[in-house]
């Protein structure tokens, strides 16, 4: 996606991470992309307090916070009234937090990214979130972006018909068991 153009000016964000230094690194990446400096929170409670009064365009949350998990926080956000509940949310997971991934996905995260996150990976994910629209599911047990989605590149205008598309379609098996065919895009489907 090196030639992909995206306008992140005036995009506001909330960055929730208990580690001040890691928070600073991610904030520097976002500023490097041309985004506004993110609002920062070090706990889930601080993030909730912020989100009661502000509606950022993007949330980036560490998988485990001192007072709650990212899943708890995102579940709370998804149950708020108004457009805030649709806010795209990226969960960053540290090496020792890899067991939290399913929980974060089931909490309603859009994408889960392992730390350390390279600028390229983070940028690619932002492009992905911006360009690939996913239905938003609201049910008794789950509220959040559809966990079943085809993992193909964002539309580039090259292929107009399904028959032109070189990426194989689902073979009709349960979509929830499908794995990604594109290595650099999110591999999980719920």
């Amino acid at each position, binding site marked *: 996606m*090196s*030639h992909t*153009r*995206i*306008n*992140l*000016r*005036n*995009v506001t964000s909330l960055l929730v991470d208990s580690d001040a*230094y*890691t928070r600073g*690194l991610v904030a*520097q*990446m*976002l*500023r*490097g*992309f*041309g985004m506004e400096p993110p609002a920062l929170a070090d706990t889930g409670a601080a993030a909730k307090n912020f989100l009661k009064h502000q509606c950022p*365009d*993007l949330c980036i949350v560490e998988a485990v916070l001192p007072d709650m998990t990212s899943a708890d926080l995102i579940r709370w956000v998804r149950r708020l009234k108004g*457009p805030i509940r*649709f*806010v*795209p949310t990226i969960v960053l*997971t*540290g*090496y*020792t937090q*890899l*067991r*939290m991934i*399913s929980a974060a996905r089931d909490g309603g995260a859009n*994408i*889960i*990214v*392992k*730390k*350390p*996150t*390279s*600028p*390229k*990976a983070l*940028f*690619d994910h*932002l*492009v992905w979130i*911006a360009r690939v*629209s996913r*239905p*938003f*599911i*609201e*049910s*008794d047990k789950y509220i959040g972006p559809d966990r079943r989605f085809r993992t193909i590149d964002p539309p580039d205008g090259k292929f107009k018909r399904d028959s032109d598309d070189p990426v194989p379609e689902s073979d009709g098996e349960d979509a929830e068991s499908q794995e990604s065919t594109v290595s*650099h895009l*999110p*591999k*999980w489907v719920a």
Partner: protein
Amino acid sequence: MKMVHFPTTRFSELAARAGGVTGTAAVEGALKNLESSRAESDSVIAKAIATIEAIVYAPHVNNCLTEEEMCAILRHADQIVTLAGTFCYDRLDMATRSLCDLTDGLLRAKLFYAAPVVVLVKAVRLMAPGGAEVSQEEADKVFAGLEKVLSHFQFSSLSSVPDCQNAEDTKLDAG
């Protein structure tokens, strides 16, 4: 009851405006910002290693750590893995991941031995930026030794947990 929405987020709307930056320019800008933090990162890594050393080298009853101490080691080691990966300290990254694998495995097995953790912490210190010059041959020997420690306990790598297959792996190309 199940409802399906098709929301257009403000993020998507803003990102689709004309102008903006290409991926190459955005990544270059971010790398430039990150590179300016390298020195500070080195000091954060040094501080985290010193904190872990203070924990493992303190006198312990029956040469065993407490659960809280092991959790603290994991927390600091996780930070080191993040920074080592971000700034491409590959050997430090490998040694610290091994420390995380061992500590996590011991915690899960309810074994609180300090001795194997000390071995891993020494390896982390050896691979830290600004530390001793280590040749590739010596580094290979150290990592083979760490592998033996892990295989003795039959602990698998944290990166092999099933959940891990579900996350985007972000191999770094930050120079």
